[in-house]
């Protein structure tokens, strides 16, 4: 039972104290995501300057995995350009689907070095049904950002 691997302290911390939860005054972009299977909801709001996300809000309701993932995501993307965000998202997705840490492009000897707090979510990999929870904020972000152009 690797439950401690799943519910790491940093996840519970983000779940209980979500960052950037306060809705933005006048977001440039906004998207709402729902996981129809479990009902988890996430809203992503973005303030843009050109290609750069200068402010972000993520709020919603759902399980510790979806909500902490959103909170961690908000920290990871704030101030980043679209290209940088896409790179992070790609790493995040490969972490969720990879066989192990190394395959996921993480550095087992230096936890957090590549994806920061987000690396705490890698335990989700072993719980296939929960991967969608972790991914929900990211697919919602993708929708908010819209196609590049």
């Amino acid at each position: 039972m690797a439950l401690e691997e799943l519910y790491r302290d940093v996840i519970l911390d983000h779940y209980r104290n979500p960052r950037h939860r306060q809705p933005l005054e006048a977001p440039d972009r906004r998207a709402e995501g729902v996981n129809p299977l479990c009902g988890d909801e996430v809203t992503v709001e973005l303030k843009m300057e050109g290609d750069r996300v200068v402010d972000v809000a993520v709020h919603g309701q759902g399980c510790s995995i979806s909500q902490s993932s959103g909170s961690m995501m908000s920290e990871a993307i704030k101030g980043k350009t679209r290209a940088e965000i896409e790179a992070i998202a790609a790493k995040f997705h490969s972490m969720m689907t990879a066989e192990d840490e190394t395959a996921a492009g993480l550095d087992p000897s230096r936890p957090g070095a590549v994806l920061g707090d987000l690396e705490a979510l890698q335990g989700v990999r072993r719980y296939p049904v929960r991967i969608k929870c972790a991914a929900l904020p990211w697919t919602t972000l993708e929708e908010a950002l819209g196609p590049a152009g």
Partner: protein
Amino acid sequence: MPLLDTTAIRADFPVFEDRGLHFLDSAASSQKPRQVIEAMADFAAHGYANVNRGAYRLSVSATERYEAVRDKVAAFLGAGSSDEIVFVRGATTGINLLAHGWGSLRLRPDDRIIVTEMEHHANLVPWQMLARRTGARLEFIPLGEDHRLDLSGLDRLIDEDTKIVAVTGMSNVLGTIPPLDVILAAAREVGAFSIVDGAQLVPHQPVDVSTLGADALVFSAHKMCGPTGIGVLWARPERLEELEPIEYGGDMISTVTRYTATWAPIPQRFEAGTPPIIEAIGLGAAIDYVEKIGRQAIADHDTELTRYALDALGDVPELRIHGPVDTESRGGVISFTMADIHPHDLATILDQHGVAVRAGHHCAKPLLEILEVPATARASFYLYNTTEDIDALVEALRDAGEIFGVI
């Protein structure tokens, strides 16, 4: 303490060869005993042919066995005749048939449709859509403080404008069993079409339509040790006469010309196309199984387990039960939440302990709105469950509390 010989019963259910499984999700769907599995397999292997119009022995005997299940269902429900039994895909399909085939033709603007605040979406959304199509108004018998129905306004709700009263026989979230007699009597008084959603009730309690007082009752086989793909609509003959078929095709017609068709007698008229034949055989075997154990014994067993569980869960810190906390007029369905742990997280942790519970809105979103929770975890009991299952649940819940640091 429970009344059933669960050791013998569990031996009938191959899934429990996995000793570590504490299956507490029978309200979603029950497990299947080998008696049902084998009856279906055996029929499919040696007795199968399409029913009706068959002039050879295999088809004749398949038709007879299929129709014998109709008789069995009629007896099981206390129906006056097998012609009152319509095979449908499940409870959902049965309710939709009534909404489309009766409601669409008969409701007028400002007529009323009455449901309760604790309906499953299957007994809510069809009425919402019927109201939209016809201009009728949908109204709700409210939930009281005690998680039971508040009937104080019943006289105002069920009046001469009320044409349909559709009420659950047992809440699949709270476990609450409403006072059907009172509600159905009120419906009868005003001549409303009264419908009981028996999806949770029929598998767990003796139900006799000759005394129930409803015009129609639906249930699904899969929650009663039976197969998926089949359910039953029972209705009074007068109501079936009023019902229009909504699916058209083979076996439901009497004559067909190029531009017109007339309908076959009831109940065939409501069973277009090749019916769920193998599933009917499975339903027959499921009824035999449930009857052998006894519906009253099953109800008592549920009650004992519920009593034990309410007790044991009452001792778990931070745990909150949504639903009646005694065993009066309630079935073996217990919804709960624990501190700020999301029910999906609870379910994942419980699953690691081998405890299978459901988490979510249980297809009853308006009810969860009222309960002011977006989701609950739900444990539900059936004839194969034991107090050990509940002990495992409680232990897993304590572990969850510890992992989340709430206890």
